[in-house]
């Protein structure tokens, strides 16, 4: 909200600090001043009044009060001396009826006759202009001026245009319309509060005046309105009509109902003085439930404890008094503070402590290390395994990416995911669903990077979302024909995470599933530990890659990280290194093309027993020299005992046993 420096100065005899300096003082103790700008011989201050302080600070007098407290200056209240015309009584000239006292907490009115409507004096125009308001005529300008000064929105009606001489505050009827001062027509409903005469609406309460009782150059008698409306009612109406005004802004934040009287007297005195009107006798005032100041008991020990500094009783009382909070001592270390009704934001001792702390100055609070029980932080295992996993992948050459948690409708059409969570208010259709998998956005990364970077190895560890809930996933992606590199990555990762017995299960999609499958049929596997499925490994379907404009193959694995971190273990057992020599014998087996390497490995392990320390597949060959439909697999078999040197007889015996075990199957042929 913008404020005029000269206007603020007008409340003080003493000179205010220079605009820049004042801005700094306000910023550090009250509100951030985001701009100071020279305007003619004045300065404009853009002050970000905090929302809870709007009731007392959306006004020049409010900011001036704040300055007075900060600078310890004496403030001068603007004069509201009224000379009433004893011959006319306001209540003979206009009647006021309030139908809903929850919606309208107070309605004060005055009548001024024999006004001379004309243009405003220069000083008035200038002040309005710096605050961004247009000059209309002297009557309207004074109403606006007084609002900017006091924070109380005011309105003036042409009394002779009010049908039946009566103002009613009531909710609109469905279908009622009003032509407002902005030239627009608004359609109303029964949630919108109105100021109306016998016949029709005169104004949208607290928001905008209507054309009907507009002040014009012929206006002679005016009715001034200074009311207090329920913030919720005004806020709802303003939203409904999509109409925000200086008045509605103030009402939405709440205003002290006690303010109506001083504000209406102020504006009446200005009009009487400058527009030469005669103020009719008496204030018409509907105020059924007077708001009284609140009292708060403040424990001074608590003040010191919460701030963490010793602030003397004298200083505390001084700060409170500067802010207009009367206080009295009840007993040692306990005072009773009376909160001015203007301060809608203060209702708790903590609110008072904030006042004391900010005026005392946060910069004057000396740093004190907390005294606390020595409790070591609890190790967060999920984060521990997350860090470990990321480090392992990084060491293996993968780069980490962070993607948005959303996918688009278009992307979902490609994958046809089930049980998605849709946003009620997405930023755009590009972000309509919460991501049910990390893969779509990772594919976008590949697509974007493939032109710049040849080899892409990326991963993301983050939350995915389905109707069943959110879950942490780890997804790794690499481009190229690298299924076995991906598989080796999984093996090494699991090994480093202390998870033994990972195995890969063949996966057959049902024909229905396979149509929209993410994975290439027969080139994918379920990743399992014991019988538990942890994730999936495979090549991404070319149909999908095409949609992302990806050239070549992409291999990916996708792991349920919640399961993975549960299975991970820091325990790692050392296997003694045998001090006896190992012997290596090679074996080559010619088998039908569909035989799994695992089947052969199992046979070798079972037949070989404990003395086979390791078996390494070192060659797979399928070629013209081989019989149709056959492949040749070659293994290194490493024989070693932990307690002795194996004799060649011993080794030969086991090797022969392995060979005969492999040849039990007539289709398998060991090539010696």
């Amino acid at each position, binding site marked *: 909200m913008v404020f005029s420096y000269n206007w603020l100065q007008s409340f003080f005899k003493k000179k205010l600090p220079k605009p820049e300096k004042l801005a700094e003082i306000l910023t550090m103790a009250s509100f951030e001043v985001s701009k100071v700008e020279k305007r003619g011989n004045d300065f404009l201050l853009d002050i970000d009044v905090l929302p809870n302080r709007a009731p007392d600070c959306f006004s020049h007098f409010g900011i001036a009060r704040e300055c007075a407290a900060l600078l310890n200056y004496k403030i001068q209240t603007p004069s509201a001396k009224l000379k009433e015309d004893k011959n006319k009584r306001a209540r003979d000239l206009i009647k006021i009826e309030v139908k809903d006292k929850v919606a309208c907490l107070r309605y004060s009115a005055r009548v001024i006759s024999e006004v001379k409507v004309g243009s405003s004096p220069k000083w008035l125009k200038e002040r309005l202009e710096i605050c961004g308001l247009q000059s209309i005529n002297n009557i309207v300008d004074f109403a606006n001026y007084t609002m900017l000064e006091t924070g109380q929105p005011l309105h003036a009606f042409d009394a002779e245009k009010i049908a039946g001489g009566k103002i009613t505050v009531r909710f609109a009827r469905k279908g009622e319309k009003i032509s407002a001062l902005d030239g627009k027509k608004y359609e109303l409903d029964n949630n919108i509060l109105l100021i109306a005469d016998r016949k029709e609406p005169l104004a949208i309460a607290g928001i905008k005046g209507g054309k009907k009782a507009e002040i014009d150059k012929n206006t002679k008698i005016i009715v001034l309105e200074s009311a207090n409306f329920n913030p919720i009612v005004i806020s709802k109406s303003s939203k409904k009509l999509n109409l925000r005004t200086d008045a509605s802004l103030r009402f939405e934040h709440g205003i002290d109902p006690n303010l109506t009287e001083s504000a209406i007297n102020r504006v009446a005195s200005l009009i009487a003085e400058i527009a030469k009107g005669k103020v009719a006798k008496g204030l018409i005032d509907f105020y059924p439930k007077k708001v009284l100041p609140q009292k708060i008991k403040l424990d001074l020990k608590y003040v010191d404890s919460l701030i963490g500094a010793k602030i003397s009783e004298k200083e505390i009382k001084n700060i409170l008094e500067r802010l207009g909070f009367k206080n009295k001592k009840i007993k040692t270390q306990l005072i009773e503070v009376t909160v001015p009704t203007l301060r809608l934001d203060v209702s708790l001792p903590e609110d008072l402590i904030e006042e004391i702390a900010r005026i005392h100055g946060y910069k004057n*609070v000396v740093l004190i290390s907390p005294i606390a029980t020595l409790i070591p932080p609890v190790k967060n295992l999920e984060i521990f395994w997350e860090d470990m996993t990321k480090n392992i992948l990084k060491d293996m050459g993968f780069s980490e*990416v962070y993607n948005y948690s959303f996918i688009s409708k278009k992307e979902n059409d490609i994958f046809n995911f089930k049980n998605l969570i849709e946003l009620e208010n997405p930023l755009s259709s590009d972000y309509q669903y919460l991501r049910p998998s990390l893969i779509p956005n990772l594919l976008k990364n590949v697509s*974007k990077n493939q032109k710049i970077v040849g080899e892409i190895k990326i991963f993301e560890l983050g939350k995915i979302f389905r109707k069943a809930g959110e879950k942490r996933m780890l997804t790794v992606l690499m481009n190229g024909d690298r299924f076995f590199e991906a598989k080796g990555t999984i093996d090494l990762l699991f090994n480093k995470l202390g998870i033994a017995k990972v195995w890969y299960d063949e996966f057959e999609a049902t024909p229905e599933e396979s149509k929209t499958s993410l994975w290439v049929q027969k080139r994918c596997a379920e990743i399992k530990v014991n019988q538990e499925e942890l994730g999936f490994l495979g090549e991404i379907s070319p149909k999908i890659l095409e949609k992302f404009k990806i050239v070549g193959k992409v291999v990916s694995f996708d792991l349920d990280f919640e399961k993975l971190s549960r299975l991970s273990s820091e325990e790692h057992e050392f296997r003694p290194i045998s001090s006896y020599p190992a012997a290596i014998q090679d074996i080559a087996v010619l088998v039908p093309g569909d035989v799994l390497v695992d089947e052969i490995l199992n046979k070798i392990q079972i037949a070989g027993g404990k003395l086979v320390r390791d078996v390494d597949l070192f060659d797979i060959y399928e070629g013209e020299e081989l019989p149709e439909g056959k492949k040749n697999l070659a293994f290194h078999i490493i024989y070693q005992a932990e307690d002795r040197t194996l004799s060649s007889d011993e080794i030969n015996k086991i090797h022969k046993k392995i060979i005969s075990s492999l040849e039990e199957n007539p289709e398998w042929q060991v090539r010696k």
Partner: protein
Amino acid sequence: MKNSNLLKKEVGNEIKSAKDLRELDQIFNKYLGKKGEITLILKGLKDTPKEERAKVGKEANLFKNFIEKEIKGKKENIRFAGAVAEDAGWIDITIPGRKPFIGHLHPLTQTKRKFEEIFQSMGFSVIEGPEIENEFYNFEALNIPVHHPARSTFCLSLCRTFYLKGGNLLRSHTSPVQIRYMEKHHPPLRIIVPGRIFRNEATDAKHEFNFYHIEGLMVDKSVSIANFKAILQEFLNKFFQKTIKMRLRPTYFPFTEPSFEVDIECVICGGKGCSTCLGSGWIEMMGAGMVHPNVFKNVGLNPKDWQGFAFGMGMDRFAMMKYKINDIRFFYAGDLRFLRQF
């Protein structure tokens, strides 16, 4: 036996002039082999007259040690000379080295770890919570009025919330985890909560609609603003690895009272004023305050018994300051040219 000094000199020269390992072996055999001169002397000791035995034995042994040492030294010379000879030729040491291929951790991961490390060293546990939340945890329990129509003016950008079909929402801050944690853990407590949050805002160089927050909470019998300042100063100094000037300014949050904004002196320009700090020399880094009594009540704690501070800050912002990144959108764009710099 010859004069021992003379003999030493003679053998020494022989060894020095040996050209290769074979010649050295010959010399060794001549003196120390099975029938070598020294071997024979040592073997013959038992026939030596008693009065000379000790002297001769001692000399022979000294001589033996001398030869062994010389031969060993020469052998190393020969081997070393050989190596040079085989690899002859120079290396252009200015040819770029071949780097092994390693991956990269996202800058936000690295920033998060830094936060965790510093706060853990001060006794804070690291806690996480769900990204899908409900109105109770995201608003109500934090003293943010949900059903107030004017709520948006009181909870600022927090209320730019993404709602999900079915009524839940994406958390707009990490503060719900404060509530979840305090419901289950009794004070004293010290936690930080890093995590992803969501705000329904258009993106630009400074704004994203998903980004990272880190929340801090310390509750004990007499935790104060002075304590907050001390903990925060320590954190800032460690994070930026230099002494950082900071200042507290009053602000308003529904869940803390008093509330303050924390500014730090601009680490880019050192407070002189630059484009990052918009000339002010200060940068707003976080919101903080003393836990509001209503928040304690909402988790079943008696506000009379406990005091605490809470703070929340954007991790992206800290990462941007630390690595001098000028656009937040780099973090979520998956551009390897960016990521490989970290």
